């Protein structure tokens, strides 16, 4: 078809529409207008959300690459899903080079904002919240990128998720910074992911503050190389309200920073205050007692470095039967601040966890593989240092 024919077809097509008449255009409410703007967005365009409180009965979704979705602020442009009848998330993003900025998603029935298989994602100044306080009937995740390459989450707020407030799963090249994260089961969780920097976040009143996990039976494994630094992690003692059966349901209340089976983790220069179980917990997936059928999975944490953290008040009322038994048996007012379960692979050479310059609250290696028979409070298991990990380079996103 040549250009003239294309033009003719276009003209005829337009004439056809006007001749036969389209559906009558009903007046649109702003929520419907936003849905349609997301559906018809052009690549590279900006979709704006006006100031206001907008209610939705079903999910929103964005499937166009390069779109910026921009509101007037995380307390000004509010997308309210309390009356949601359909859809497993408030907003679903399935596109690359997307920026979400300046709005809030409240009371979604499932996840608040899920971002599946993204690249170069930016989330800036976004709030996800369940407004009824911490409850097991709240949705699982607040900000939930999964299988993404290039994730920047900054200056955002995540409150009330029954799993994790900010959850980055099966992704690479991640920066999570300057966020405020409270009253979730897990505040921030980096799971089965590689190369993450988690810094300058304020993480308070969750069950567990910052979690770095590697789990089996997932398509993306081998989580490693995460730096957790310059965060304020305080009184994450909220009783675990995760629905039973979930892995975060096993997190003891009062866990400041927790590493599960991940490798190459550096935890430094954080302020970690008031945690009833432990300031820092390092465990193997084996401690969960769950079966392990996945031959590709490495359940042992390795090359963990914990240094120069400011730690106060820890381990005074551990939310864990074996830890409470240990505290009682050892006749201690509080357990040491840094706890490692003691699982090592048979061919392991040298220490698993290095810890130094973390104040006076001490360490313990639990000897969990032998039924907690010979816990070591001497610090010998932690006496080593490691080279600093390199920072994450995000490319254009920063």
């Amino acid at each position: 078809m040549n250009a003239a024919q294309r033009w003719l077809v276009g003209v005829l097509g337009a004439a056809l529409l006007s001749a036969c008449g389209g559906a009558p255009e009903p007046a649109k409410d702003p929520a419907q207008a936003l849905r349609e703007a997301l559906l018809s967005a052009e690549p590279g365009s900006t979709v704006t959300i006006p100031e206001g409180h907008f209610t939705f009965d079903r999910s929103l979704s964005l499937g166009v690459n390069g779109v910026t979705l921009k509101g007037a602020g995380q307390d000004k442009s509010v997308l309210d899903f309390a009356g949601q009848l359909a859809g497993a998330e408030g907003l679903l993003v399935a596109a690359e080079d997307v920026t979400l900025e300046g709005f809030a998603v409240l009371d979604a029935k499932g996840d608040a904002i899920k971002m599946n298989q993204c690249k170069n994602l930016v989330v800036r100044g976004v709030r996800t919240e369940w407004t009824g306080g911490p409850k097991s009937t709240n949705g699982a995740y607040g900000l939930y990128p999964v299988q993404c390459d290039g994730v920047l989450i900054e200056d955002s707020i995540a409150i009330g998720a029954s799993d994790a407030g900010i959850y980055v799963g099966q992704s690479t090249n991640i920066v999570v910074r300057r966020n405020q994260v409270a009253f979730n089961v897990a505040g921030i969780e980096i799971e089965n992911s590689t190369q993450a920097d988690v810094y300058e976040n304020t993480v308070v009143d969750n069950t567990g503050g910052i979690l770095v996990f590697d789990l089996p039976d997932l398509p993306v494994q081998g989580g490693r190389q995460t730096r957790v630094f310059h965060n304020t992690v305080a009184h994450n003692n909220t009783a675990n309200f995760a629905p039973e059966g979930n892995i975060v349901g096993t997190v003891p209340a009062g866990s400041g920073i927790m590493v599960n089976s991940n490798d190459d983790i550096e935890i430094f220069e954080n302020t970690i205050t008031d945690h009833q179980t432990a300031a820092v917990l390092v465990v193997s997936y084996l401690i969960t007692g769950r079966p392990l059928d996945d031959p590709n999975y490495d359940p042992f944490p390795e090359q963990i470095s914990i240094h120069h953290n400011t730690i106060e008040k820890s381990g005074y009322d551990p939310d864990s039967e074996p830890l409470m038994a240990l505290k009682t048996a050892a006749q201690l007012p509080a357990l040491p601040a840094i706890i490692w379960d003691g699982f090592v692979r048979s061919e392991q050479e040298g220490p698993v966890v290095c810890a130094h310059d973390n104040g006076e609250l001490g360490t313990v290696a639990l000897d969990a593989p032998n039924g907690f028979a010979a816990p070591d409070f001497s610090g010998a298991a932690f006496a080593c240092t490691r080279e600093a990990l390199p920072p994450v380079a995000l490319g254009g996103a920063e």
Partner: protein
Amino acid sequence: MKTAGLLALLALLVGCGPSGPVREGPWPERLSELAVLAQENGTLAPRAGFAYTLAHPLFSDYAWKYRTISLPEGGAASVVTNDDTLAFPVGTIITKTFAFPQGASGAVRTVAAEPLASPSAAFSLEGTRLMETRVLRHTAAGWEAVSYQWNEAGTEAFYAPAGALVALTTEGGERFPYLIPDKNQCAGCHETAMGTKILKPIGPKPGNLAAHAFADGGSQFEAWRDGEWVAAAAPATPWAAPGSGMAAEAHAYLDANCAHCHSDTGAADTAGLDLRITASELGRGRCKTPVAAGRGSGGRAYDVWPGRPEASILPFRLGHRDPGIMMPELGRSLVHEEGVALVEAWISAMDGDCAASLSL
């Protein structure tokens, strides 16, 4: 497009009546202008092409479905594998019309439809409420998907890229929102390899087509071969017959209802649960602990716990109506009781056990 196409458009313009199916270009505002379905004498019938059915359909709140395919002239589908969707030529249009049988009060009846008798069988509209017609169109740029929403009178359906929720009530007095998917939600299921932005049909897989026999006793897949709508040298191996009560029937049910997301490439590959008919028992969730299930775990430890459906997550999520818990995530508001029973029976009959779990 050749001159013939222009003339066809010109004819359309003059008479406002449909000629051939609109296989390319902008979506018409009205379904009748797409010219693939004919509504006459109280029935819906293929205007171009033929009707088909699936032995194992996707459950959609007990809605009755009338499916048609219009192939471009001289075109035929080809078999990829027995268990994967047929490859259709460019120009193909697939439609699926959703309707509910209605009682006198206007309440919808949640009963099974009569099986499709033949490829030319029309769909009787008597006593039914038409909801929507979902259309898949294979253009030169790839498959496109959108739904047309019927007006309440059931006289015309209109292009509905933003979808809708329609409040319905069952004869039992249960109120439920019926979802007409928006364009992205269409893609959410039909983009079977997440991230590719490539849509494809989900339903018409040879094994599923072949598991249906028409009124004359012949296999649907054989009818396709006879009609030269599919280019296949060998017959398809039918999936387990509905009602056979075997594990294979549950596998077919899970494929039809779940595998567009729960595969090695689908939107749910993040969960590591594979519900394709070709999956292994481990892939299908045997003793698999939940990862990102949230409330969907229902306090249960494993996706599938052999012998213990009451402790397995899979039937819990299939049996739930809360959008934050239920599976599939989208496309139903009611529970498919028969489907849940089938999955529970499959798990009950399964040998083996999972370990009781502990924690720190």
